[in-house]
């Protein structure tokens, strides 16, 4: 029983699984060219025009699974031949337009872009249209459609455009690595680079902990994932793969919330530093606010630094929902602490490449972090944690006015106001993904229930206060 939202995810997973399997068996070099045939056995095509195109695309996916194009610094890449070159018409009136009398579309168009033909049917004058979508939202027949490409629509930072060959193209200067396009492209033509092979190598070379201790730091959103098994079984599975120990990034979140609360009272205004895509967004689009970004490392980097400093020789792999984390760990100030990053999708592929059936394993435990560290996984959690940290620090004079933004559009709104000095808040919690990390591109499933799962797991924490969780780490 595998749980993915889409068949695209499943396809990507199969490729990752095969690559990992061969790498574990030391057969990757000889057998890598067989993978397309394993995944697309033929004779009839199921996804594209013919099995040869399907196999060609699978070979491109294999490349991405093996780390992708080294000359391209972006962790997200377009697979040109997989791009279906979707139409890019923008808003268009369909045949469903009945030529009604009300003409709400015309009334609501501020640009005067709606024109009518002899049959009273609406048309859009593309020279005037600014793609605001007002007309579509008011048409009683839903006759106006937006034919924007799913990738472009998913990209709130407008980093995706059509190339001269009509395939999608990513502007690396603008891209923040959030992975929204990766998850949204219905053809799976945009993929995040995988560092799975690095992880296989780390596992093998640790020789079961003899050479060095290999730690898995797992993101708190794990509580909403692998729903077909128990969380404790996932932890057992990670250890069975060859990891020495599993630590919650949520403990790093506790440490960050504590320090961020302190920094906030000193500086008076702060934006959060947990979400690497949000941080990158500020740096590229609102450079004037760069000095407001919390100077703290992210929860991952904070806990990884702690482990490396207390355990000589330790190696660390982060497992989370996030594609942007893959870029974060390439930064100078983070690189020394984290050896590789994989997503939950990739963890699933690792399990199955070793035939680890987590549902058959005993339940191990994962703890240390407080309730507050654990709820970082969902939008508003960080804000709650900073509120708690301020309370525990006994800072009652400081008036905390947070605003929690999920999704880049919401972040952009708050940052715009902040840059003009008219934002009625002194703390911006920014998460690039909708709902927070539980909406991350590397999640197996994305759903309404996920937030509840995160809260429920938070409530199970032994440590009720942040101080309880971090006292010994300070």
């Amino acid at each position, binding site marked *: 029983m595998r749980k993915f939202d889409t068949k695209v995810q499943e396809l990507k997973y199969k490729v990752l699984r095969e690559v990992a399997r061969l790498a574990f068996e030391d057969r990757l070099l000889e057998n890598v060219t067989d993978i397309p045939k394993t995944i697309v056995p033929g004779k009839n095509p199921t996804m594209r025009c013919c099995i040869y195109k399907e196999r060609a695309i699978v070979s491109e996916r294999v490349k991405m699974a093996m780390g992708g194009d080294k000359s391209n610094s972006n962790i997200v890449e377009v697979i040109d031949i997989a791009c279906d070159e979707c139409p890019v018409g923008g808003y268009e009136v369909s045949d469903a337009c009945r030529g009604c009398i009300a003409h709400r579309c015309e009334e609501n168009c501020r640009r005067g872009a709606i024109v009518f033909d002899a049959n009273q049917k609406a048309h859009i004058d593309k020279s005037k249209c600014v793609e605001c979508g007002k007309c579509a939202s008011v048409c009683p027949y839903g006759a106006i459609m937006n034919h924007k490409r799913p990738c472009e629509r998913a990209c709130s930072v407008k980093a995706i455009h059509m190339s001269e060959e009509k395939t999608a193209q990513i502007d690396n200067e603008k891209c923040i690595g959030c992975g929204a396009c990766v998850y949204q492209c219905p053809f799976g033509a945009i993929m995040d680079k995988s560092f799975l092979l690095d992880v296989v190598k780390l596992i093998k070379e640790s020789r079961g902990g003899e050479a060095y201790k290999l730690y898995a730091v797992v993101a708190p959103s794990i509580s909403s994932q692998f729903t077909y098994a128990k969380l404790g079984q996932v932890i057992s599975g990670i250890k069975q793969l060859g990891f*020495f*120990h*599993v630590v919650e990034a949520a403990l790093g979140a506790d440490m960050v919330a504590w320090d961020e609360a302190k920094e906030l009272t000193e500086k008076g205004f702060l934006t959060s530093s947990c979400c690497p895509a949000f941080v990158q967004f500020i740096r590229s689009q609102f450079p004037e606010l760069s000095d407001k970004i919390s100077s703290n490392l992210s929860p991952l980097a904070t806990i990884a630094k702690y482990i490396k400093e*207390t*355990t000589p020789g330790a190696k660390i792999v982060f497992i989370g929902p996030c594609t942007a984390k893959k870029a974060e760990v390439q930064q100078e100030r983070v690189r020394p602490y984290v050896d590789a990053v994989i997503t939950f999708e990739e963890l699933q592929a690792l399990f199955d490449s070793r035939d680890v059936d987590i549902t058959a394993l005993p339940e191990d435990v994962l703890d240390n972090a407080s309730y507050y560290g654990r709820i970082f996984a969902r939008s508003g959690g960080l804000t709650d944690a900073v509120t708690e940290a301020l309370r525990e620090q006994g800072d009652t004079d400081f008036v905390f006015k947070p605003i929690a933004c999920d999704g880049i559009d919401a972040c952009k709104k708050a940052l715009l106001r902040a840059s003009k000095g008219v934002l009625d808040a002194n703390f911006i919690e920014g998460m690039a993904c909708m709902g927070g990390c539980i909406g991350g591109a590397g999640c197996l499933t994305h759903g309404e229930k996920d937030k509840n799962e995160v809260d429920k797991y938070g409530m199970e924490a032994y440590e009720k206060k942040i101080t309880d969780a971090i*006292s010994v780490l300070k």
Partner: protein
Amino acid sequence: MKVTICIGSSCHLKGSRQVVEELQNLVEQRRLGDQVELAGAFCMGNCQNGVCVTVDGELMSVKPETVNEFFEKEIAGRLAQ
């Protein structure tokens, strides 16, 4: 003197939280803060004998109910020598 307490999951279940708290209290009561550095670590690979503690690198085992005894002997006792 450096005292490291394991806060890995197994020791955590066996009460490392209480051990940490007790030790912090005792260090504070005796005003040994300058001489004893308390720290945490993730798993010392000796889970069956948890809670694992190292005193200047020497691996030992403590239970929440034996913290006082441990403190007198291995921390206060050693410092007095």
